[in-house]
């Protein structure tokens, strides 16, 4: 395709007035002064309303007796594109497969939510949580206990009444 060039014609400098544009802008400013529309939040007094699919730091679900729901199947470390989950499986005293070591490096995590999607027992979840400040970097590797302690709401990756989006 041939390239065509459109030549723009502008009035010469000094032969045009900006008065109209300035007044237009100022009128908008005055309008906001008398009838403001607020887009910012008074955080942290006010908390944002997160979308149900908003994905933040993880949370491990636990059984009623306090055991982690994870069965150390190894799917989340396999699917994780950031390779940030470390898992060592083992057997507990009741003969159940469970994670002896389960760690997520939240710095490396890209919050894709695939770990939650792949988990066959709905154990690991990404969460509705973003306040993660720490004093040291190593605190961002969450171990199993830390993941189990989290109590923030978890992300809803799909609509429970329509899991296949049909």
């Amino acid at each position, binding site marked *: 395709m041939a390239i065509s060039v459109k030549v723009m014609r502008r009035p010469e400098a000094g032969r045009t007035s900006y008065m109209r544009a300035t007044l237009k802008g100022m009128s908008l400013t005055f309008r906001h002064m008398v009838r403001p529309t607020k887009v910012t939040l008074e955080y942290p007094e006010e908390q944002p309303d997160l979308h149900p699919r908003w994905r933040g730091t993880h949370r491990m679900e636990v059984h009623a007796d306090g055991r982690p729901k994870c069965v150390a199947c190894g799917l989340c470390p396999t699917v994780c594109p950031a390779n940030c989950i470390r898992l060592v499986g083992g057997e507990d005293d009741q003969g159940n497969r469970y994670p002896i070591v389960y760690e997520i490096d939240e710095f490396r995590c890209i919050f894709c939510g695939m770990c939650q999607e792949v988990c*066959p027992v709905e154990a690991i979840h990404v969460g509705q949580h973003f306040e993660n400040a720490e004093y040291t970097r190593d605190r961002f590797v969450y171990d199993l206990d830390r993941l189990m302690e989290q109590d923030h709401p978890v992300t809803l990756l799909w609509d429970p009444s329509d899991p296949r989006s049909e």
Partner: protein
Amino acid sequence: MTDTVTLTIDGHEVTVPKGTSLLHAAETLGTEVPHYCYHPGLTAPAQCRICLVEVEGAPKLQPSCVTMAQDGQVVHTDSPAAKRMRQGVLEFYLVNHPLDCPICDMSGECMLQDYVFDEGREKGRSREPKRVFGRDDFGGDVLYYGDRCVMCTRCVRFMDEVARDSRLTVVERGSRAVIDTFFDRGLEGASFAGNVVDICPVGALVSKDFLHKARAWDLDHTPSVCPNCSQGCNIELHTRDNLVQRLKPRENQEVNGHWMCDYGRANYEWMNRPGRLEEPAAGRGAKRRRVDWKSALEHLFVQLRAGVGAEVKVVGSAAASNEALAALAAVAGEAGEVSSRVFRSPRAADEVPLPGFPLLVRRHDLAPNVDGAGLLGFERTGDDEAKGGLEDVAGHDGVLFVLGDELADRNEDFGAAAGLYVYLGAFDSPAARNADYVLPVTTFAEEEGSFVNAQGRVQRYRQGLQSPGSARPAWLVLGALAAALGGHGTPATAADVFAGLVAAHAAFAGLTWDALGDRGAALRTEAVHG
């Protein structure tokens, strides 16, 4: 009469020897017909009913594992009828199968998982509660999860036909059928029972040692040779995180069939032993200091050159590769008059044959390369526990080389009188205190090389682990030294060293590295027996 038959499978014509089953004939075309009960090392009872294929002219579908190929047959493995049947059979298998893949050790290498994923129904239609057996300890290294069993009876037939030690059987009938041991006599003490875990097509029989240790898809597989006895069963090292996680047999009909012994299978933790020698060091006792490879080898070269003519004694090892031993012999030969070349190696009192596959015997010699060491001019010394026998070496006043023998029964005086003492090993030892050079070398799992097994078969093994620090294969270190002393080119690969070895040792004549491949090659018979 010809001894081949020509038939058509899925529209492709194929010629196979007479007596080939349809399943194998399809395999030559690259078509895998699903099967559970059939295993190439066992008889075929044709009971799992999943290998049924359509044969034109036959009234019903035929089990391909026992139907022999015939001239002019037209076979369809993928016709709608065959597929529908397989789907039906799979659905029956799943009526009671727990589908606990997330916690099942077989997940990722399970034939039920694969077949259902390929051809199974998307959803089961059974609404009945599943029967539950729980798990049973079969003794030895074997655990049985009855719920997962597909009743193929491979395990029962292995114990009956190959191990000839009937310890497993089917009890009960129909959906209550399970595999069980006889009363309280389990697999404890059996010598080949670990193989039932390999041949179980699903996760019903699992290894206690491997339980929950790693996922099948996380393991790297390296073709290798079992280093635990001189049979040299072909195996695979399954590694993860730079650790050997388990050993699995690799088929080789000349050596071990499909099998390996439990003794060999269980002995792999030593490959993961920590506390290795990582950097070359020079100087005796308190004067020892780290050096780099270049200066270590240069100084050693100069010293060997200067000392030419001295009496040389060499301690090798039956766990070292042919390449390392040949290079060691070459270096010693260049350095002076070699008065002894010895190795020590443990010996078991008994041999353990596998009755159903008599080629496979757990041998007396519990080291992989006793025969290779013998062919390369090393003589056995010491007792059956690999102790003693080094009295004259300990006080030797000439040049002394030690390769791969940890000298565990020797004290700090070893080699005190030696003019030059070179210790090549993976681990430090009190008896290495007087060594002028301590050179870190790789273990069997961290290098390439070859062994000669008890049948006179030269077999290659490959590198499965990364070596720690700057440890190098012994053949590389010694090959470079021998090349410098002898004034020829430095070998860069194990293949180069092997080529030199073949040229120097008549016993190996005619062999090439490529010809060894992954199955090995036999030495000429006169070399072994004469």
